[in-house]
């Protein structure tokens, strides 16, 4: 661990998250690749204790926004603050103690077994007092994602949905105040989609901040505290699901007519695309 833990004493630990406090703030973020503007001035606060869903049509800039937050894309203008400090004032490791990231691309170069993959999530805490509970945290995040039964299997031999759950387990094991999930539900079946969103809710209820990119607006409507809708690189709506998910707005942004109905069980908004009925009947 020597290379990773050089200067251990200087590492600044995150404080325990306080609900309502912004852990990540994006201010005036602008990104363009060549002539094309991807993000045109984004302001966004990601607060502890809430699930924030980022939605929007393909190419709206959702993934780029995540890349901005994780400092994987250079900003043309604007700043990102993590834990009240400008992002670049933190070391790679200090950032890893504050936010865990689940990307869409979750491949592994080598056939590590599932347990080893999840354990990698603990690496920012190596050599610190938090690492005493590594086994407990790893076991906990695996059981919460239903990955225990293939702990000894090779990651590369799993199906797409199973890989996605293992990757989620790794991110949960990192035990950071903020969690960024880029389309974690894409390869999953209904049961596991719901499971992921319920885990996100649990995470937020213990004080964590969860940012989740989803295409399924119903999931966002049912589980998110707040929805930020992106269109052409700008946030065009930011608020509680019932306010953001209106038929007019969605029809306009996605360029397809939809109607909104209430979930018979919960009253949460369900988005129903307007479809022509079959001709036969």
């Amino acid at each position, binding site marked *: 661990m020597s290379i990773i833990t050089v200067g251990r004493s200087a590492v600044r630990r995150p404080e325990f998250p306080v609900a309502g406090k912004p852990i990540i703030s994006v201010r005036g973020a602008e990104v363009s690749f060549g002539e094309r503007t991807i993000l045109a001035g984004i302001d966004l606060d990601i607060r502890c204790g809430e699930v924030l869903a980022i939605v929007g049509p393909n190419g709206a800039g959702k993934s780029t926004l995540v890349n901005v937050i994780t400092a994987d894309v250079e900003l043309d203008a604007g700043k990102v603050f993590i834990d009240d400090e400008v992002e670049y004032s933190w070391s790679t490791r200090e950032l890893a103690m504050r936010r865990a990231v689940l990307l869409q691309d979750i491949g592994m170069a080598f056939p590590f077994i599932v347990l080893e993959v999840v354990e990698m999530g603990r690496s920012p805490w190596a050599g610190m007092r938090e690492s005493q509970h590594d086994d407990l945290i790893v076991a906990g995040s695996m059981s919460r994602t239903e990955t*225990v039964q293939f702990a000894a299997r090779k990651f590369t031999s799993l199906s797409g949905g199973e890989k996605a759950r293992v990757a989620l387990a790794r991110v949960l094991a990192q035990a950071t105040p903020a969690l960024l999930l880029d389309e974690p539900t894409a390869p999953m079946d209904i049961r596991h989609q719901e499971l992921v969103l319920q885990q996100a809710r649990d995470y937020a209820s213990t004080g964590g901040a969860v940012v989740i990119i989803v295409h399924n607006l119903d999931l966002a409507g049912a589980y998110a505290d707040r929805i930020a809708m992106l269109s052409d690189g700008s946030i065009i709506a930011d608020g509680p699901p019932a306010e953001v998910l209106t038929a007019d707005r969605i029809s306009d942004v996605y360029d397809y007519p939809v109607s909104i109905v209430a979930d018979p069980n919960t009253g949460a908004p369900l988005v129903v695309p307007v479809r022509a009925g079959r001709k036969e009947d």
Partner: protein
Amino acid sequence: MSESTEIRDTSLRRSRRSDPSNRPAPTSRIEAVREDGGLDLGRIRGQRTARAGTLFLVLIIALIAASVLSAAIGQLFIPPLEVIGSLLGKVGLDWLPGPSHDFGEEALWQVRFPRVVMTVLVGAALAVAGAMMQGVFGNPLAEPGVVGVSSGAAVGASASILFGWSFLGAFTTPTFAFVSGLITTFIVYTVSRSGGRTEVITLVLTGVAVNAIAGAAIAYITFAAPTSAREQIVFWQMGSFNGSLWSQVGLILPLIVFGIIIAQTLAPGLDILSLGEKSARHVGINVERLRIIVMAVVALLVSAAVAFCGIIAFVGLVVPHIIRMIIGPGHRLLLPASVLGGAVLLSIADLAARTLVEFADLPIGMLTSLVGGPFFFYLIRRSRKESGGWA
């Protein structure tokens, strides 16, 4: 799994309830499947450790056997027990008789032992460099040659032979090989860097370009050189342990031991790099720093290895791959196992090079390529089958 089915049923039943006053909480709750005792960390880790332990034991025994046999077999056969006796005698133990032949002791200590030690060192260095290279590229087909260490070293060595430089005596050619290997890697790395980051694909393609230029330079030098120098250049490139000396061992030993120790400290970072460059950064690995250190260590190890013995291909490719198949890809065990595995493989290869054809010392680089080429082909086929294309 039965438990999970049960839970699923309950949740479905609950959501079908029609009594509106008794509606479930916002959503039916999925309890994650909990299998009591299902996650036995100790058992899973124990299995791995046992496997690794067996492999290390086998490799150590194989290394001792190969080294003793290497020292025993040659134009003058010295029984293995006498070889061990001579070794023990050197440290003051008279348990076994030394060589019975008149020149036995001399043959062992002046010709065979330096050669055996050199082979072991070079094999270890090449294999561990290969393992690191594959780890840092996240690709099991990577080899130190990718970033031009070997071809750069060959240019330096050939140039020194062509111009007949001898200001460092017998060490002139090795020094040139070593330095130009380092410089070439440095050039490949800096050229492919942009904006403080290095894309792996750019690095590989830059390596291809630099290798091509180096190939042209070697071709020109070979063309321009007088016959005797030309012969020397050609043979240097084919690789051989013929004529290894203690003084040479003394020079490369500290470099290679240092490289192997540094490599071991990089193991945890290399593991995590397997997640992909971005994800590795997100769990706190300074990818760029790790990569620079790996490059430097690989350049050091390979330059030191080829300096005296010439180019020996495929050891760095084949050894880590076989070991990964046996004990998995974790670098904490893969790197030390590669050290042993490379030493064993090259010892056996050198023994073959000396004994396959009577009274001839075959170029060892030719032998390893002859065996490694088909193996590389098999690896390509296999990894294509596994990932369903190039992933």
